[in-house]
């Protein structure tokens, strides 16, 4: 099925016109082969090439964007079953269910949270982005949708069985690309017609994967690309099973009818607000695209947003901390200074031990492209002639002018050389090898 980059290249115009956004036809072909570009991006593609490539060139899980602007959510474009094979591409969009039973103040409060809530974690901003609006009354659905858009700018999921109600709510907001939820066996043609007319994404929903695939095939036959799947999993085990089989069919069998991202509603699976978060964590870990919760209490969203980042971070690029001086436990000019690398795990481990020691300290983090201490030392990045100029520029001298620094025990051998490189009154002390020994070390440390 899948063609190699070279096979695809042979079918292209080979003019290197760059209009697709890639520097050469070959580069474009490689991206097509990797499922990272769409054939439509080439304005000169021949019908013959289209026929040959159509199947092979689309990503196995289609890209779908819901919403517009800052809170837009792009999901799909996935190419692997396991994150270590390459990486997972698009972090799931987290959102909240807003229903007609809620009073105005409650709705406004949720929308305010959607607009404001964000967390910073290893240099990324994490936030919920989606408002799913559910109302049996068509007028109320439209009113809540308009309110949600105006007050939060969130990506919208409009929930109703009736295509006319969906149309009424979506039409004024069609440029915001709301997701119509959902087309079923009963209303597929009507909902699909609205999605086509308004040019917005829509969800398909069925009780079995077979029935879902039939709807997916119908959507493909009508040339839809932006479709979201809801397999209506009844239990947590079914969530795992449905999400796994959908992803497996798409990736391993190039089964296009299920080659779309999914949406899940842990909020509708349990009344226990804590268990709901545990359920949501299964959706996030196991391939879901959009996950809808019953509220946005930060104590509940924070673990899920971190989880999304953890699962979707690129395993081939170690998570890195920003280079710089990190104060821990309110240090002063006399506090100890520890130097280490910007590998996120190194930072997390060291900083949490320093914190636990209750000893005020400065942690100076050096950018070595996210490598651990020993790896960076072996690669010549965490060595005396690199550390010395970095320390002098780091600004630590202004914060703590005592010129005594502590290096990790694993690089004890560089202490002499580093002292020489630093010159002029600096003193290099060798710290411990294991982070767990830091508290004891710091408690015994004294500046003199």
């Amino acid at each position, binding site marked *: 099925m899948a063609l190699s980059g070279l096979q695809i290249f042979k079918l292209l115009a080979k003019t290197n016109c760059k209009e697709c956004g890639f520097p050469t036809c070959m580069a474009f072909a490689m991206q097509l082969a990797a499922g990272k570009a769409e054939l439509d991006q080439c304005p000169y593609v021949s019908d013959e090439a289209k026929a040959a490539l159509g199947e092979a060139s689309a990503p196995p899980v289609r890209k779908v964007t819901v919403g517009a602007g800052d809170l837009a959510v792009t999901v799909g474009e996935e190419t692997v079953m396991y994150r270590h094979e390459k990486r997972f591409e698009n972090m799931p969009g987290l959102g909240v269910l807003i229903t007609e039973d809620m009073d105005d103040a409650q709705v406004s409060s949720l929308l305010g949270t959607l607009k404001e809530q964000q967390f910073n974690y290893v240099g990324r901003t994490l936030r919920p982005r989606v408002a799913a609006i559910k109302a049996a009354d068509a007028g109320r659905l439209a009113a809540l949708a308009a309110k949600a858009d105006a007050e939060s700018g969130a990506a919208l999921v409009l929930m109703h069985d009736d295509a006319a109600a969906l149309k009424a709510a979506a039409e004024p907001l069609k440029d915001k690309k709301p997701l119509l939820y959902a087309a079923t066996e009963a209303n597929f043609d009507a909902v699909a017609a609205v999605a086509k007319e308004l040019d917005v994404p829509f969800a398909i929903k069925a009780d079995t994967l077979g029935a879902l*695939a039939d709807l997916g095939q119908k959507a493909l036959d009508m040339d839809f690309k932006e479709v979201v799947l809801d397999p209506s999993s009844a239990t947590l085990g079914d969530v*795992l*099973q449905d999400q796994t089989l959908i992803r497996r069919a798409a990736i391993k069998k190039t089964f296009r*009818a299920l080659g779309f991202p999914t949406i899940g509603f842990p909020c509708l699976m349990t009344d226990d607000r804590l*268990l709901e978060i545990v359920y949501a*964590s299964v959706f996030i870990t196991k391939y879901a695209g959009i996950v809808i919760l019953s509220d946005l209490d930060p104590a*509940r969203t924070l673990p899920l947003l971190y*989880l999304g980042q953890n699962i979707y971070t690129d*395993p081939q690029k170690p*998570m890195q901390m920003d280079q710089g001086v990190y104060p821990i436990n309110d240090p002063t000019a006399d506090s100890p200074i520890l130097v280490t690398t910007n590998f996120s795990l190194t930072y997390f481990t060291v900083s949490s031990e320093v914190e636990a020691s209750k000893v005020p300290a400065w942690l100076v983090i050096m950018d070595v492209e996210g490598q651990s201490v020993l790896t960076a030392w072996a690669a010549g990045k965490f060595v005396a002639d690199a550390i010395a100029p970095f320390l002098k520029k780091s600004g630590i001298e202004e914060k703590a002018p005592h010129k005594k620094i502590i290096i990790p025990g694993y690089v004890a051998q560089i202490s002499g050389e580093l002292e020489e490189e630093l010159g002029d009154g600096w003193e290099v002390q060798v710290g411990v090898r294991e982070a767990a020994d830091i508290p004891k070390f710091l408690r015994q440390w004294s500046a003199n």
Partner: protein
Amino acid sequence: MSFEAPLETTKGNIHEVEIGAGRKVGGETTFPFHLWEGEMPNSPLIAMEVYDEPQSGWPEAVRKVYEDVMDDPVAWARKCQDEFGADAICLQLGSIDPNGTDASADSAAETVKKVAAALDIPVIVYGTGSPDKDAEVLKKIAEATSGAGSPIGPVDDSNFRLVGAAAMGYKNPVIAFTSMDVNLAKQLNVLMTQLGVPEDKIIVDPTTGALGYGLDYCYSIMERDRLAALVQNDAKMQMPIFNNLAPETWKAKEAKVSEEEEPTFGDVETRGILWEAVTATTLLLCGTDILVMRHPQAVTLVRAAIEGLQAQSKEKVAS
């Protein structure tokens, strides 16, 4: 094109390891909770942790649960068994830390004996990760728990000979610890089996990262472990996995920082419980067999997650 569920069968399976009190772990013939295409004969086990000396600096959410039993490991273990329904106890030998109390092997063995005698559930005994001291103590523990089948660890590439020999003599499973690396994990299993430790007496600790603190590494290492075991049928990777997640989770800033200090983070108790429960649930999905946990409410949530994951409508696959 009609849909046919793409099922995957495996060549290998995970060894079943007896851990005492008639319980077993492992035995999976498929990926975690893929009950539609294989078997998972033993539910993942939730071992609640008990320390052999009082712990300081714990977040309020967990401190208040155990403050009445902190200085009595027997009462602590009983509380976990009787009140919280723990499947097993993981006795963490904090007292033997050479940088701490530095308690003797004999005193640790005494505690282990007392705790084990008071319980009907398996006891896992875990040292502090100081290889020399752990070896000295774990040898004594093997002797003290002779015949009970208590798993002991951590055993690493520097002390596996000493501990492995004792464990073989007294028939304890050993928990082989390696630092977040699939190849090192395999290498230690090879060394241990060469020493003569039977494959079904080895459990592995691949290093556990908490949510936000290395869980991503841990998750992928465990997925790769399971692929090697099940798909490649690598006998040296077919060991049940042990995740000592409680100490890692409750060290995370996000699990313990107060709402006063981080006003945007929300209620600290809810956050702490979820930090542990979400970490544990994620580990369930990449192949854990033993979860070491601390907060009883997190334990309840994870038990519900296990039951939920086991509830599958099998007819769906055939649809």
